[in-house]
């Protein structure tokens, strides 16, 4: 079994995102998107049971490769990435096109994603990749039971439903779906010798299509008063008064 897990390097989420010409400004050092840890965890559980090979696939400015290292520390076998200036500000469809060509080049059976990145959060790339690869997409997986068969529970609008994982498919995993493992010191050291390979856009058979054009970013006036009261034991009264005024009570 060959598994490709898509992982994205993103700016430190504790720092507010800034934009230049409509694209997110990306520092040299980016970190692994926490959302992707859930997908990696699912891949590693499959690896343990079926002796699968797990490859991280990633697109975007590679910088110090810290995020890729973090993915390898969790236990993935290797990583490949595409870093090409022409992909700056790539829309979700182009991103999916590149990632699906990468998955194809690996002959991946199972392609795993988080549900959406923390910085761009379009939330469509897993399904787009499945369509490019002509595979079914099992989206919003929130639980996995690995036995001889693999049972996936997916989130639906009204609750959940269970399916058996087929031999080939695309999966997206929701945050909180599984418990991502923390690497120990040995894992961190071992990751340093794992291969990270760059592939060029030319190696992949893809067509560029930027149908979305950035117009501008406009700041919105904050209409909130921002009134702050320091609680010295009686501040609850302010809330009670306000709820009365608003006719909630």
């Amino acid at each position, binding site marked *: 079994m060959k598994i490709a897990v898509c992982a994205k390097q993103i700016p430190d989420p504790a720092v507010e995102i800034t934009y230049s010409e409509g694209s997110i400004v990306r520092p040299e050092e980016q970190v692994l998107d926490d959302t992707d840890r859930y997908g990696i965890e699912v891949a590693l559980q499959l690896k343990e049971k079926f002796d699968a090979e797990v490859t991280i696939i990633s697109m975007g400015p590679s910088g110090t490769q810290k995020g890729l290292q973090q993915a390898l520390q969790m236990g993935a076998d290797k990583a490949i990435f595409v870093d090409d200036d022409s992909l700056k500000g790539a829309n979700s469809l182009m991103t999916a096109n590149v990632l699906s060509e990468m998955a194809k080049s690996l002959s991946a059976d199972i392609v795993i994603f988080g549900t959406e990145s923390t910085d761009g959060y379009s939330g469509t790339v897993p399904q*787009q990749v499945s369509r490019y690869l002509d595979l079914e997409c099992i989206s919003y997986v929130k639980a996995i039971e690995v036995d001889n068969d693999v049972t996936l529970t997916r989130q639906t609008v009204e609750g959940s439903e269970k399916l058996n994982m087929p031999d080939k498919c695309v999966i997206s995993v929701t945050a909180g779906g599984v418990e991502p493992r923390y690497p120990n010191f040995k894992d961190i050291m071992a990751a340093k010798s794992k291969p990270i390979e760059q592939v060029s856009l030319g190696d992949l058979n893809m067509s560029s299509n930027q149908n979305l054009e950035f117009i501008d970013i406009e700041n919105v006036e904050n209409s909130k008063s921002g009134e702050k009261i320091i609680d010295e034991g009686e501040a609850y009264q302010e809330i009670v008064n306000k709820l009365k005024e608003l006719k909630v009570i």
Partner: protein
Amino acid sequence: MKTLIIGELINNNLSSGTLEILSKATSLNLDAQVITVGIDENPSIGLDNCKQTYLKRKSDSLNLSKAVSKISEIIENEDISLILGSSTYMCRDIIAGLSVDLNSSPVSNVIDFIIESGNVSTVNSINGGESLYKTKINSDQALLLIRPKAFDPIEVNFNDNYETIDLDSSDLEVFDIFIEEKSGPQLEDSKVVISAGRGMVEKENLELIETLALKLNAAIGGTRAIVDAGWMPYSQQVGQTGKTVKPDVYIACGISGATQHQVGMKDSKFVIAINKDEEAPIFQLADLGIVGDTLSVIPKLNENI
């Protein structure tokens, strides 16, 4: 502009997200039709002034790929240039699939759109609502995923006049369907929402929120952090990856106000925030901010309401 709205069913009715988009399409005088995808039997979804088609899925198969192929065919045959859907699990899956078939990248999390001389432009909210990001779509077909609550829903009468198309099964068999029991006020339509964050310290303290919610007839939500921690089901998550709420009163308890959370609640009419940290970003969105320990403020509210 020839427009297709992807409709969704909740409890045998058209979802509020669908009705919100229909309202916007009507106000722009778009030449719109609805294609609703669902598994319910004979839902009452026919519309007086708008063509409705029902793509009926199999309940025992995850066959959204079949729905995508059918909708792609209709879009090509009928020369449709604008495709709209709500940012829900199902519509995201469908519009993502369509975007590959039509070779046109979708725009996600749209809060408004404009049509000028045949071109579609979209507006997104970024940086927790502090800025608006505008995009022009240059392809023949524009695909938009619209955030719930972006528009007010249309009021319409429903009839039983629509065509039903049965979709084939895929290879993915669904064998255990669980419908989450819903009791009490629901996040989407409750006038008061109380949400909990990390500042509640531990799961047992959510009882304080439950007591207050009963008194105020409020729905209960939570941040991604506490949903990930297993304190609440995913269906109660408010934020970018969860639900969007727009109540008359939103009470944020022990929530710092990360962008991820702000996206889901910033349009609430009146926001009350309680947080120990005076610098917490949630206070920028608050009409009334209490700098204090949620765990001491809420019990006093419970005693005095």
